[in-house]
């Protein structure tokens, strides 16, 4: 019998990407995608449920679809996307409700994997060169996105303790670069000159977007429990990241950096304080535990930057060649359920 999978955040970049990947997996029978907004990528056999993340709806969905696996990709790590309050609502309350639904009496769920971020380690001058999974951050979290991720993770710890029969996987992804994903970092790297902080050239680490999806598929199919850092091998200086992208750096002052960044924000260059910290102190996470579990990365940190640089060059030349996808419920229903559609099984 194949897997029945619930993917949260179907309209987000990761939810959509992951559902597309799962559709190609013959071991996956059913994919249910949950979101408050319509999906933004084309999906063949994923069932989209438009629902908010309230507990009563979630537990009914879990019961009704009898999903055995929940892939929780709906944790927002880009604080420029929404207000702090909305972010709290999704990351903390959404996770709380989802895990409550997954842990309800008689729940069919046997695996929960959560896509968190290495933002939980923060970025400060007192950090070690490499963070291992069991290490705590050195300074308490100041930004809302970091606090919300820590809270979501603590709910997951409770869930794992209360539900020993469920395989619980917590993945902390490093900053992602890739062909398609848009993050504050990728936007900064596409500016005519890459912002940096005068006198600082910290070592940063990246994971490639395909490795993110491959990793989620890996932990699902291999059922590996535990906490894992997911980041490409090696760290490289911020200046070198800019150089691989073929850009110069444009230094912001080391004092009153927030003021300077605020001024840039006015002209549309958003540098959230998590990114400013990263540009000052950098961050490194030890990725060896995941490798020991059997995962093989396809890209190193520098490789991810190089791949991103190539994709940007292509996009600069030919524009966004992919037509924007618009979800139409009737069309999707027709494709998925009409007997007139020939499906190659």
């Amino acid at each position, binding site marked *: 019998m194949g897997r029945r999978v619930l993917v949260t955040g179907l309209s987000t970049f990761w939810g959509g990407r992951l559902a597309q990947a799962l559709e*190609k997996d013959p071991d996956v029978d059913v994919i249910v995608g949950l979101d408050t907004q319509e999906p933004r990528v*084309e999906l063949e056999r994923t069932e989209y449920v438009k629902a908010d993340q309230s507990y009563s709806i979630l537990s009914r969905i879990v019961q009704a679809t009898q999903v055995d696996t929940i892939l929780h990709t709906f944790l927002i790590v880009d604080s420029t996307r929404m207000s702090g309050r909305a972010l709290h609502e999704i990351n903390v309350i959404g996770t709380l409700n989802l895990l409550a639904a997954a842990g309800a009496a008689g729940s069919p769920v046997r695996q929960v994997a959560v896509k968190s971020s290495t933002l939980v380690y923060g970025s400060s001058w*007192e950090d070690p*060169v*490499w963070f291992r999974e069991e290490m705590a951050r050195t300074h308490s979290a100041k930004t809302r996105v970091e606090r919300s991720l820590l809270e979501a993770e603590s709910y997951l710890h409770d869930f794992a303790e209360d539900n020993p029969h469920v395989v619980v996987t917590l993945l902390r992804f490093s900053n992602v670069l890739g062909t398609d994903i848009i993050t504050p970092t990728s936007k900064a790297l596409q500016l005519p000159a890459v912002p940096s902080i*005068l*006198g*600082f050239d910290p070592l940063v680490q990246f994971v490639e977007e395909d490795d993110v999806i491959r990793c989620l598929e890996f932990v699902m199919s291999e059922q590996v429990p535990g906490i894992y850092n997911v980041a490409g091998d090696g760290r*490289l200086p911020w200046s070198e990241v800019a150089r691989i992208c073929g850009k110069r750096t444009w230094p912001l002052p080391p004092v009153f950096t927030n003021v300077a960044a605020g001024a840039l924000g006015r002209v549309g260059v958003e540098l959230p304080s998590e990114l400013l910290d990263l540009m000052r102190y950098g961050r490194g996470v030890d990725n060896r535990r995941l490798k020991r579990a059997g995962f093989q990365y396809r890209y190193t940190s*520098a490789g991810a930057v190089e791949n991103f640089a190539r994709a940007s060059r292509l996009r600069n030349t030919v524009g966004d060649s992919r037509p924007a996808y618009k979800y139409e419920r009737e069309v999707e229903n027709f494709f998925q359920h009409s007997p007139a559609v020939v499906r190659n099984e």
Partner: protein
Amino acid sequence: MATGERITAEGRGALVHLPRQPEAEPLTDPRQSDVDEWGRSEHTRELARRVYGPLYRQLFRVEWEGLEKIPTEGGALLVANHAGAIPSDAPVIMHGIEEELHRPVYGLADHIFKAMPIVGTMWARAGGVAAHPENAYRLLREQQQLVLVFPEGTKGPGKLYSERYQLRRFGRGGFVEIAMRAGVPVIPIAVMGAEESMPIVYKNAALAKLLGLPYVPLTANMLLLGPLGLVAYFPSKFKLRVLDPVHFDVPPDQERYSRSRIMDEAEDIRLRLQDNLYDMLRQRRSVWFG
């Protein structure tokens, strides 16, 4: 490249199964600089060696005693006394061992460096590492490197000239615990000469607090040489004595070690260093000529 193909394939919006993306080319690491995971750059270090060479040979005229006690392979934790407003002992030890034994030394220093613009970056490129137990463990246990640490911390270089060669408290003995955990010996090095190369005659606590620095000194170098004294050392004669390595007969990788054992060992090493410093000072006829 795979990117172009995929964009067109998905752009067609086919309902049939898309062929899986062709496997990416084997993992390459397209680095453009030589900065390693610790932030060191061989290029910068070569430059630093060229600048520091004359200082080491002509200014400080460094003499070693017992250099053969430092292993040519395997990890070891070097500990030394620390002195001078801008400590001159760290680069002397690092440069000396790298020149004589041809193996790198990773100098651990206070995190505060990392928070300083330019200084922090230069220091990391030249071979400094932030003094975090995790960093020390990785260097000693996994990479079997030589690591240099000053257990006095900033209390050593921050002391006045009148307190020279009086060892401060050796922190909380963390260096012993790391050596135990990493299963490497501690090798103490007594350094004579650094105190006189940049002596502090006055400290301003209020200014230090304002600037967030461990100490803000007025040095004899500044009094004599003016602004140049901020960076210029006096030509004191350096003598370094390597003491016998201390091996701890405990299994590595334990969660904790006996606190009293750690304090005993740390205090023992401190006393041996102090005794040797007194011994070297007894034999010294001149600050400038040894």
